[in-house]
């Protein structure tokens, strides 16, 4: 049941990969996320070279986001105008990120960059989500009323030039913050192989204060453009995209995602967020742990001369 992956140059058990794709797809459908942050660590654990894992799953994110965007577009829940601005930033970010990743690989510091970004971003976002959703659950149990939130956007959003109207999101703000957000997500997608939804969605909700109904669809739209760009750049610059690997993952992924999405309606939003926050936090800690634990093998090969 093993299959030889032509770019990764290893052979792996393919039913296991389909199962992995389905599981990650299920999680991504359930929580409405791309699931890239879960996929990369597991692929690396299975023995796929990290560079190939990160690059190949970017195309898996393209597939899972495409089916998401189609369903959101049907409900008219995408703001293509602000999504386009963010996607422009995402393309620039992907360009920067792929070059940065290439440079770090040559320096032998790619592992450090991946571990640090997982620890920092997943750790912080996971802890925040867990804290916020647990607080909400506690208040519901005690029957308290949620405290009044500050509904105003940060003032600096209005001080910037290049203001644009985004009617669907109910915004009239400068194009610079969404563009910068896109750049940031693009860099992350190149280094971590993730779509960046876990950063984009909170930022769009709490910083830009977009209408909640269009946030997820718009972030998925931005993610498709960014990860598609990342895939092409990783293939073109680093030759690390394994089409066989990503196809096997997607076959499981798209099916899993549909079942996950169906099941998600049965749970309360804050419960789902609490579980997701916990998963995100654990993955971040797990990936960051290698920085602090004495490795059993001090030496390792750095890519560069061989490929």
């Amino acid at each position, binding site marked *: 049941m*093993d*299959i*030889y992956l*032509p*770019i990764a*140059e*290893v*052979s792996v058990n393919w039913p296991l990969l389909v199962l992995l794709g389905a599981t990650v797809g299920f999680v991504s459908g359930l929580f409405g996320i791309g699931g890239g942050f879960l996929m990369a660590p597991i692929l690396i654990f299975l023995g796929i070279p990290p560079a190939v894992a990160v690059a190949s799953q970017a*195309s*898996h994110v*393209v*597939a*899972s*986001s*495409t*089916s*998401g965007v*189609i*369903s959101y577009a049907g409900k008219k829940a995408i703001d293509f105008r602000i999504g386009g601005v963010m996607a422009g930033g995402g393309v620039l970010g992907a360009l920067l990120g792929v070059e940065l990743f290439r440079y770090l690989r*040559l*320096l*032998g*510091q790619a*592992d*450090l960059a991946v571990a640090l970004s997982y620890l920092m971003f997943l750790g912080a976002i996971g802890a925040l989500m867990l804290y916020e959703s647990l607080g909400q659950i506690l208040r519901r149990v005690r029957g308290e009323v949620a405290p009044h939130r500050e509904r105003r956007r940060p003032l600096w959003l209005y001080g910037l030039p290049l203001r644009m109207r985004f009617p669907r999101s109910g915004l009239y703000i400068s194009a610079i913050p969404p563009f910068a957000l896109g750049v940031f997500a693009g860099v992350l997608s190149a280094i971590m192989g993730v779509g960046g939804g876990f950063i984009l969605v909170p930022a769009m909700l709490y910083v830009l204060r977009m209408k909640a109904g269009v946030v997820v669809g718009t972030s998925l739209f931005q993610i*498709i453009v960014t990860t*598609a760009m990342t*895939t*092409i750049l*990783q*293939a*073109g*610059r680093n*030759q690390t*995209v394994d*089409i*066989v690997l*990503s*196809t096997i993952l*997607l*076959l499981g992924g*798209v099916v899993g*995602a*549909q079942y996950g999405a169906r099941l998600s309606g049965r749970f309360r939003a804050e419960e789902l967020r609490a579980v997701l926050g916990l998963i995100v936090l654990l993955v971040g800690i797990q990936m960051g742990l*290698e*920085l*602090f*634990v*004495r*490795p059993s*093998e*001090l*030496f*390792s*090969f*750095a*890519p*560069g*001369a*061989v490929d």
Partner: protein
Amino acid sequence: MLPVFPPPPPAVEAPPPERSAATLDEVRVAAALTDARVLVDSSFRGASIVLYGAVFNPSDDPADVVVVVRGPDAPVRLVKKTRNMGVWLNSRPVLFEGAPGFYMTASTRPLPDIAEFGQLRRLGVGLDHLRINAPEESRTVTRYGVRDVVVSRLGADYLDWRRAVIRLREAAALYNSDPEGVEFVDEGLFRAEVELPAVAPTGRYSAEVWLFQDGEPVSVSNLTLTVEKVGIERDIFEFAHRRPWSYGLVCVLLAAFTGWGASRVFRRT
């Protein structure tokens, strides 16, 4: 009158075949591989090739057989994790040359019993005798009045680094030495197995079969072996490396199409 027949030509004494004559008084080894081409396709999980051969040994001295299989040269960049302020960080990568992508030895006895250190080093036989070094790290200096002393910037750690190259490759089953890997199946007839793991590099491999007598190499037989990707794997690999941009575009389109297809299928059911 009886016809006079010419006298019959004298029987020509046929010379014995050259090889048999040579083996009468010369110690020789001959060997062959069951497969000179290893094809890597989608079901490739490594390969096991049998090298078999014969030893012609008319003398009374026992002879030892050493099989060395060497893959194409693959320089590596090695990093070492060091602890800086409580965090384990990679050092600057060091380029090591002279490390083949695959290396195995199989012999009738442990190598140090077969020949002396210097002899093995000269022939490059054995994992300890691979000419792995880091040329960029070395420089020549004058020390104690002796000129052109080669020192390494890696300092005292140098041997650790070299050993790590071998250890990491051994862990990936790319390097192997089996002191009992050559097995005599009959008088003068031996076999040895070459185990190629799935991660074995593609390219031309060379196999040397050495015959040692009293610690001296007396005969050698050279064979070649090619490991190549075939079928769809080869096509994908070539496509990804020759036209990387179009390949990336195809990957994205395939992914987008799969996502679209899935949403169509699931909307109907």
